[in-house]
């Protein structure tokens, strides 16, 4: 009787703990920033070996979605700045700060051009051209789209006021 109870207890705990295992793994996915991508660019659209070391690996990148492809978002651009805010805040970026994102299936998100999304997928760096989407420097394939959590909230004393001298 006790043995049976133990078996059920262990099985129950496994059921509770198992879903948490992949979640713990997903936290280990390296996050690349647009600053890292820009720093990696060398002459003639070359990229550093350091950034190439992420090729074929799953990475996370955060940015604004530019729906450049079909409306099912099977292909879109991920940009450091929002493409659709005409008057705020920075000039549009080019090839160096744009990631070409390919998803396996239709993406179902509440699209907001002014919201940052997190893209997780297999990274590729290096100039490549394809017939459908033209040349690209950075790509993420088999991507999934997640809502990005906001940036850390700073206390006023932790963060200098805009324009103030350090």
């Amino acid at each position, binding site marked *: 009787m006790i043995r049976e109870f133990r078996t059920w207890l262990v099985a129950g705990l496994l059921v509770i703990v198992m879903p948490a295992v992949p979640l713990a793994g997903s936290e280990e996915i390296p996050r690349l920033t647009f600053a890292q991508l820009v720093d990696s660019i060398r002459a003639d659209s070359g990229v550093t070996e350091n950034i190439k070391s992420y090729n074929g690996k799953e990475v996370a990148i955060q940015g604004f979605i*530019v*729906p*450049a*492809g*079909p*409306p*099912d*978002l099977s292909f*879109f*651009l991920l*940009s450091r*700045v929002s*493409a*659709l805010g*005409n008057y705020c805040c920075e*000039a*549009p*970026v*080019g*090839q160096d700060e*744009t990631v*070409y994102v390919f998803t396996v299936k239709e993406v179902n998100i*509440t*699209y907001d*051009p002014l919201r940052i999304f997190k893209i997780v997928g297999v990274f590729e760096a290096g100039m490549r051209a394809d*017939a*459908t*989407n*033209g*040349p*690209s420097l950075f790509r993420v394939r088999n991507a999934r789209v997640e809502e990005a959590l906001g940036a850390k909230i700073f206390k006023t004393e932790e963060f200098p006021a805009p324009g103030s001298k350090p």
Partner: protein
Amino acid sequence: MTILTVALKYLRGRLVASTLTAVSIALGVSLVVASVLLAGGIKEGFIAGATDYNLVVGAKGSPTQLVLSVVFRMDLATPNIEYTAYRDLQQDPRVETAVPIAVGDAYRGFRYVATNSAYFAAFPWRRKTFALAAGKFFADDPPSDPTYEALLGAEAARSTGLQIGDRFYEGEEMAEYPLTVVGILRPTHSADDRAIFFSLPSYWGMNEVARGMAVKPLTAVLIRPKRMSDLPSLHRALNVAPETQAVLPSGVLLTIFNMMAVAEDVLKMILAIVGAIVLLYVFVSMYSATMERRREIATMRALGARRATVLGIVLAESAALAAAGGLGGIVGGHAVAYLARSLLGSSGLVTNPFLFDVLEPAVLAGVILLGTVAGLLPAVLAYRTEVAENLAPLS
């Protein structure tokens, strides 16, 4: 006799009540199936009909109106821009292909779309292909010598009955400038099936105001950039310019999908209420049937039927009703979607009412399960029927 045969005999015994219950289940299920099919179909129609071009440039105004009028022909045209905007974009080093579009007027509701041969050209990046069912494409004629040749979309040709060589116009003022049908396109399953295409010089020639203009008017320019990463800068530059706006058509459609999602949430709530009402109806129907049959059940028990058998018979009745209603509902839902397609077809949206969703077997299983659950309490009542109490003399 098996439990199922007895249950079916009972259902046949009260045919009218059983049929009404099954029909009410079928109506509820068909409402759910039709709603899901149509909501999905409208979205698919928008996705399938979306342009292969990445940017639509037009006059300042509503981005949604620009995309709906130029891509889906579902709204009035936005104000004109100058033809020079197209020339400038053609020479922009970031632009691979620019296609001018002028829309306005219609023949029997089928919109006139003036453009040039680039609109129909095959590019490696294009999903959509244009092929002729008959005749030829219209000529890229010079502005001084418009040919007034028309190319009909498949649906426009079918509905109007126009054939190669036919001349047509709509409105008295157009009688001097009739169009001649030179070609008919194969179906593209997009809004282009409902369009009548001809050249820009023909469009300007037909329009009294445009005839006198030194710089000719356009409604929009479709843009394909050389590099996708140039889209944001093109978009920004054209929007900051005082006379034009640039729109990412997929961005507009995603905003429409966001609005549709809100409507879908409301619809889901309504469907959940409908489902609850249907379940309640099944429960009431089975409950009253069980109460009416207490004497019969007691007789069965007296003749040796076990309590579990009685329970099984009532549950089998509920399940059979739910199965019949569920199947009827799925067929009915597709039929409603088929009827609605003809209505949506006139707005340029395409849906496929025959598309069988993989979730439909799950819907049927769910309906049977819920129907059985609705019959659970009446079944328990039948299970607990006391023989002595219910076989007592009636008078």
